[in-house]
């Protein structure tokens, strides 16, 4: 729990719907940490305010997500950080958030389809949609890596299919040819045949879209038989430092893209995170912190624990204000917002500013590579803002 002391005249009610367990628990637990960091910073730092956070575990499945979301609704939580994955986010929104008038801000649901949901303006996200990442991948591949042909190997699920689709259309738009698009199931006994299928036409670039868990096996199978000098581009799912070590290769032919914590408040957030958890923030952690921060600011500005009122303030607290709030002065900012001051949040992951659909106006991505020698194990090669 984030801290449930109500040491003031007003208590901000807030919840999370993140995958602490299940398939996505790997990144999910650090996301909870990031959210919790925001809650407790405000709870401890703001004198007149308390934060009562209810942490809900979506268990990575829509069914469990809905149940948990219902519990949040039942507890009277007006605003939620989450859900994390697209299918959980949509289901929980349809079933719970929208009917109950709760404001939800997802740090990581990237599907394009969320944009157009009839959401009574209750849904926001602090991560850019897949369409943008596909663009970044294609752009970097064609321009920086000079790839004219590519093959895609993607995990057969929501994330993999959507991102693969976005990449393929962007790559072809950029004049390249996608020779093969091959899907695979997680935890297959062997990926050799799928890899063989994908690289059969000897593409300039192999794009691997998947997760760390299956990625280890997949790259082992790849390096066992195929050229270690072919360019490979992967995605945020594999943005985990331990992978080269597990694969047993340097993997210096691999680059990846990932939504990037590149907001003005990034350094502040990183040092806060490091101090608290003694580790580098992982993927989506900045976005999670931002979602939590913005929801708290909006809640304080609204002055009531009501979803509709909070969502009305979401754009106000993220556009420029008299007081610039960033992760390091978030407690102060929330208090100011509660007192009716005009605040403007500058996020850890991005500038954070929402368009009419509740999507980010801009998205920042990094192109990264494994760097086993560095402390983080991963280095940023370039950043893109779209």
């Amino acid at each position, binding site marked *: 729990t984030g801290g449930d002391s109500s040491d003031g005249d007003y208590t901000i009610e807030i919840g999370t719907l993140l995958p602490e367990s299940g398939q996505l628990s790997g990144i999910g637990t650090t996301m909870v940490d990031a959210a919790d960091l925001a809650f407790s910073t405000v709870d401890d730092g703001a004198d007149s305010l308390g934060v009562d956070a209810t942490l809900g575990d979506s268990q990575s499945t829509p069914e469990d997500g809905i149940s948990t979301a219902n519990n949040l609704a039942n507890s009277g939580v007006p605003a939620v950080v989450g859900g994390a994955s697209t299918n959980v986010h949509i289901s929980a929104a349809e079933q719970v958030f929208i009917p109950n008038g709760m404001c939800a801000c997802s740090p990581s649901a990237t599907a394009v389809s969320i944009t157009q949901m009839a959401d009574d303006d209750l849904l926001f996200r602090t991560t850019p949609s897949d369409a943008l990442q596909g663009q970044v991948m294609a752009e970097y591949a064609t321009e920086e890596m000079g790839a004219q042909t590519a093959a895609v190997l993607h995990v057969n699920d929501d994330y993999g299919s959507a991102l693969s689709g976005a990449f393929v259309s962007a790559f072809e738009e950029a004049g390249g040819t996608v020779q093969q698009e091959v*899907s695979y199931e997680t935890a297959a006994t062997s990926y050799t*045949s799928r890899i063989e299928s994908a690289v059969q036409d000897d593409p300039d670039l192999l794009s691997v879209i998947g997760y760390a868990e299956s990625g*280890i096996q997949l790259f*082992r199978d790849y390096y066992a038989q195929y050229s270690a000098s072919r360019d490979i581009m992967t995605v945020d799912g594999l943005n985990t430092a331990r992978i080269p070590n597990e694969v047993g290769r340097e993997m210096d032919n691999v680059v990846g893209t990932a939504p990037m914590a590149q907001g003005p408040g990034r350094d502040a957030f990183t040092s806060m995170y490091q101090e608290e958890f003694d580790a580098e923030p992982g993927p989506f952690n900045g976005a999670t912190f931002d979602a939590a921060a913005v929801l708290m600011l909006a809640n304080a500005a609204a002055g009531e624990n009501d979803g509709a009122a909070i969502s009305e303030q979401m754009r106000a607290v993220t556009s420029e204000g008299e007081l610039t709030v960033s992760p390091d002065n978030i407690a102060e900012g929330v208090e100011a917002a509660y007192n009716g001051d005009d605040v403007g949040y500058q996020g850890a992951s991005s500038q954070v500013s929402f368009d009419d659909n509740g999507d980010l106006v801009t998205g920042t991505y990094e192109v990264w590579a494994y760097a086993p020698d560095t402390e983080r194990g991963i280095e940023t090669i370039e950043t893109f803002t779209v």
Partner: protein
Amino acid sequence: MPLSRRFTDAGVGQTLRRNYVEAIFVGFVALLGVDLLFSLATGSLPLSRFATYVWDGLIIGLALGLAGIGLSLTYSILGFANVAHGDTITTGAFIGWGVTFVLFGFGDAAIGELLLLGVGGDLSASDLGITLTARPLAVAVGLVLTAAITAGLSLGLDRYVFEPLRDATSMIVLIASVGVAFLLRYALVFFYKPSQRSLVAQPETAVFGTADGVPVIAGSRQALQNGEAFVEIPVAIGSGTNALLQVNAHQLLLVAVAIGLMIGLHVLLQRTKLGKSMRAMADNDDLARTRGIPTERVIRWTWVIGGTTSGVAGFLIVLERGTMSFQFGWLLLLLIFAAVVLGGIGSIYGAIVGGIIVGLTTTVSLVWLPEATFARPVAFLIMILVLVVRPKGLFGGRVVG
């Protein structure tokens, strides 16, 4: 059930109907075969790609079959489909590999870290450098240990879960095994955390191909390109330098053990007193007891044998893949079931053959499929078609062996 077996022989009409389906089925497969030959001949399907599919499929298939032997055994003799089979394999493999790590990695890392296969530390992958050729002792000891541990685990499960259910219907026991599956799988998560880890270094490989038109075997694709072959067959059959197929030591071990175990177990069941008493018990346990067969002991032996083969399977699958996660047995289970049923429940040969068919289907079908997602559905489709033609599986009909 047993009574009806007497009367299930198919007659003229059914046979005809079946032959009809069979003819279509065989015809279709033949058509695919012709198309395959044509593609190979015209070069639109390079031989090396086809060879890779086949070898990959074969390895997957043998892994499924090997894992299926234990399932088939307990299935036919104890009369229920053990849903916990996959997770038993996983659990055995985790513990077995953990102990192996402790024994052979002693000093490289803290014992706790070794035992937990690197959870909470930096230990990973190839750190211990275990491969068949580099550390054969570690592999041998690990194999035996894992087999023993899995057998012990199976015995324990029998004692505490299945023994009290001896009189229950097979469905009830099946549900109990679902409980066991959940329990084991998430106990693994509790101890080992959910992440995938790799345990094995890259094994020695051999590449078959041609160098300047001469068939050669080299250590790697690179070596072959460089002309560093260690076997050369001085008959020119072309002109190019091509790698055709790459195999590795762990795959060869898997093939050898799968075939060995298959034959060994078949003989065990058909020829030995234990095997026969197992079959007698599966047939009519009341009469078996009356004839003095200590059925409880036979059941325990069944678990021991099933567990041992499962342990061997688990260890070798991990050795071959190089990685392991808490889900691997569970995710394999469906295909294992398909393999066992396709081959005919209770048939040891059937499990292996069924496995190979399933494995090959999932890879070779990539030649034709518009989308790789359909590979698994096609494997299931073939299984269904085979069952329509041969309702008891390829080697079905007899209870065991």
